[in-house]
């Protein structure tokens, strides 16, 4: 049996990116994917007959096109779509606020609500871009292993430090000040209009279970702007063929360089011998030996399910168990026989369409998640990909994919754990958590439709079919622990050298020759392909070192 240089577990966009980088270096690479298609959550599949739907991720705006060369994507591999509207916020009563790609149009739109906000908006857009540029320096480079700053590591720090310094020391200090701020504070300092603030704050929500008043929101706002051209909102771009086109292009590029990609092949275990990963065991019983194993699965799944906790130290296991994994987003796919009724619908609904009328609305929606309930009035983020590529659905039909917040994976069955409930059973790290199920499912659907009725009335009459994907489905279908599509919350405590767990940044693990390349590693989630890219580089480094010594 031939031995691979690297076996990658899962064919999500990050694993595919890693496979591209490794295959281009001449590595013999095998990618194993449990599902029938590549892409993981960045896949576009037939959900309704004859319709191709972005199953989870909608927006590829964080993918940095200049990396195409490194992955071996041809110049015309991807067709990007930049709709005129970046986002439209539905304010109820037929009112709406749209941010356009054209700054003048945006200013005019905001001015209808507040003149001061309108004149301040261009400065905000610049500020967001400039702060995101500084942050990007940190995301482009491996996280420093602060606990082990050898000479060599120190030298590696020089380049990002110099790059950051070139952007201005004051800016770096400002970034340090701003990162921990709540979205609310950041926006309160600049804007008066509640509609605008609510809308902008939505970019702080993905990746966390907190509302706009929670610290660290500003970081997530900047993070979602690191793809460039945020237009004061977030880096947003769509693809002909859906988000899955990116994953398929990556897969094609990897194959072109000799990588093998086997779909419908589930990895059951990563086999560890003498402290090193030596092969993977497939569900059918087949064993695939490899020089190294690279897991695109999230860290908890990788360590506790694929490797197995008993193979790892208890202190490390505690850290893994303590990774905050909190899926709070459900997705509702709708098949529509026409666009929702709204003036200029084709223009206005072509970006992100939001139900986030005020900061307090978002705050109240997130309150429910704190107590383990679904929001009675959820925040919705609607994308209609058929406006970017009509061929995704039969003529005249539209698909709307709605991210619903908050629908927490961790539901509270009983209000509070009683004081005399007795000790929890051995090894159970998360007592009291019940995944979303049953009548809560119906209620979530009803609440979402009610919210649509309120903010985008008439939509309900155009629904031909629907599919609700809960965090529990994300877990069972895509292997996302607790339905967390970021492979771990994007809070300041789970970033850089703290991601996935403190002491094990840089994609390495306590198991020799086992690496992580998923969103659970630095720099984090979203369709960036950065974790995969950095992981591949780290793996190449490790091989060089091994060869040298």
């Amino acid at each position, binding site marked *: 049996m031939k031995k691979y240089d690297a076996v990658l577990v899962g064919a999500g966009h990050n694993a595919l990116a890693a496979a591209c980088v490794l295959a281009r270096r001449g590595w013999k690479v095998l990618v194993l994917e449990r599902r029938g298609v590549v892409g993981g959550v960045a896949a576009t599949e037939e959900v309704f007959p004859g319709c191709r739907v972005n199953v989870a991720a909608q927006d590829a705006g964080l993918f940095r096109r200049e990396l195409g060369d490194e992955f071996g994507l041809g110049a015309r591999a991807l067709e990007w779509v930049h709709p005129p509207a970046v986002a439209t916020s539905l304010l109820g009563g037929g009112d709406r606020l749209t941010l356009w790609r054209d700054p003048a149009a945006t200013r005019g739109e905001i001015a209808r609500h507040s003149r001061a906000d309108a004149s301040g908006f261009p400065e905000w857009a610049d500020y967001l871009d400039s702060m995101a540029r500084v942050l990007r320096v940190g995301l482009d480079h491996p996280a420093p292993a602060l606990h082990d700053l050898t000479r060599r590591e120190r030298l590696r720090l020089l380049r990002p430090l110099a790059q950051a310094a070139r952007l201005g020391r004051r800016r770096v200090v400002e970034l340090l000040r701003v990162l921990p701020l709540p979205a609310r504070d950041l926006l309160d300092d600049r804007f008066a209009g509640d509609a605008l603030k609510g809308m902008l704050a939505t970019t702080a929500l993905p990746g966390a279970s907190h509302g706009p008043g929670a610290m660290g929101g500003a970081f997530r706002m900047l993070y979602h702007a690191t793809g460039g051209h945020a237009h004061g909102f977030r880096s947003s771009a769509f693809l002909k063929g859906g988000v899955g086109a990116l994953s398929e292009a990556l897969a094609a590029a990897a194959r072109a360089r000799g990588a093998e990609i086997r779909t419908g092949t589930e990895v059951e275990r990563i086999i560890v011998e*003498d*402290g090193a990963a030596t092969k993977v065991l497939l569900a059918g019983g087949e064993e695939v030996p490899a020089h190294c194993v690279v897991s695109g699965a999230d860290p908890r799944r990788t360590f*506790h399910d694929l490797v*197995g*906790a*008993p*193979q790892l*130290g*208890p*202190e*490390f*296991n*505690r850290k893994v*168990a303590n990774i905050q994994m909190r899926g709070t987003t459900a997705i509702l796919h709708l098949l529509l026989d026409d666009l929702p009724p709204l003036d200029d619908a084709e223009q206005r609904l072509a970006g992100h369409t939001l139900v986030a009328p005020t900061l307090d609305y978002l705050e109240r929606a997130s309150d429910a998640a704190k107590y383990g309930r679904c929001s009675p009035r959820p925040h919705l983020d609607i994308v209609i990909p058929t406006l970017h590529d009509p061929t995704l659905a039969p003529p005249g039909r539209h698909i709307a994919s709605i991210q619903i917040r908050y629908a927490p994976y961790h539901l509270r069955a009983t209000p509070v754990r009683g004081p005399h409930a007795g000790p929890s*059973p*051995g*090894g159970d*790290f998360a007592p009291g958590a019940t995944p979303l199920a049953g009548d809560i499912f119906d209620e979530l659907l009803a609440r979402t439709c009610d919210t649509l009725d309120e903010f985008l009335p008439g939509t309900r009459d155009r629904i031909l079919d629907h599919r609700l994907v809960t965090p529990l489905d994300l877990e069972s279908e895509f292997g996302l622990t607790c339905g967390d599509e970021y492979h771990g919350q994007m809070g300041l405590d789970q970033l850089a050298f703290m991601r996935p767990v403190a002491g094990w940044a840089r994609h390495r693990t306590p198991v020799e020759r086992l690496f992580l390349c998923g969103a659970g590693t630095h720099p984090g989630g979203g369709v960036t392909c950065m974790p995969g890219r950095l992981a591949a580089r780290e793996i190449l480094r490790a091989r060089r070192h091994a060869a040298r010594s």
Partner: protein
Amino acid sequence: MLLETPFHPRTAPLCHSRRWRNWSGYASALTYEPGHEYEYYAVRSGAGLFDISPLRKYEIAGADAAALVDRVVTRNALECPVGRVLYTPWCDEAGKMIDDGTVQRLGEDTFRVTSADPCLRWFQDCALGMDAAVRDITRELAALALQGPTSREILERVVTGADVAALPFFGLTGGSIGAAPVTVTRTGYTGDLGYEIWVRPENAVGVWDALAEVGRGYGLAPAGLDALDVARIEAGLLLKDVDYVSTWTALIESRKSSPYEAGLGWAVQPQPGRDFVGSRALAREAAAPSEWGFAGLEVEWPHIEKRFAAVGLPPLMAGRASREAVPIYAGGKQVGYVTSSTFSPILKKYIALATVRREFTRPGHRVKFELTVEFVRHTVPARVVKTPFFDPARKRG
């Protein structure tokens, strides 16, 4: 407020000295009589009866119980047959000692582990992903240690349903005392022939009474912690947080000890393919030994006498064991420190357990022991010797 052990109704009236100490939150007699000498000699010539109920006790059960115990402790638990007991330390991932205690294998898939301090969370966390349940049974199990040359004869007369005479060193058997089911292990903390009896709290007093009744003819005496301390030093047995500091409470790296440093290197049993917590760190240490090690010391008693005599005093060091750290010198430099020391009534020597630089761990090395006489510090010669200091044939025989 200190708790009472299940034997308290018996031990309290016997404790004429009224000297109690806090052992894990329980009132535990230091001595029953005003001094501990009689209790000590009972252990060495008759039998001493110790209430050791405050020990922490855990039950580990399940299909992976053996694998779990083997993962936690440094000794090879898979090779421990049913009906046997292991003494072993256990370590954190850095190979530093957390605690030490005994592992009793009650069945293929059932173990009982004792420890000095609480370890439930650790054991449970080590069990993640394994089919093994860990339960704290500290309050469900009372325990007595019956230690001394006559302990076997006493037990033979008291225990039914078990062949106590045939019980080997570190063996375990079930049986009954009166109507009460008990577990008997041939273990102890005195280095003498001895047994430990594990019983449910509601039967505790009955077991005590049965032993006391029969023991009367065999020189049995209730014995307290002071006597135990002298006996365990003679036996060369370590006391947690005296002779070594648990990695959890050490606060600084330099206070932590590996089993090698604590003289328990024999209890580290690596094997190809055996991956216990700390095994990698301990393998590294085995390859590149630490600069610290463990030594038993015999301090030259005539020199001690001479130093005291010089100021007109008898040697004021006879009596209770000392847990005070005392510096050890060689060539004018400090090379270690004594952690426990005592005058051994049976050996008539002053003996000590010490942590010393590795080059001084070999028996025969000569070092200096710091001695303070009338507020003036001196040094007296001492010799590194093998432990146990006292090792009677009856212990294993």
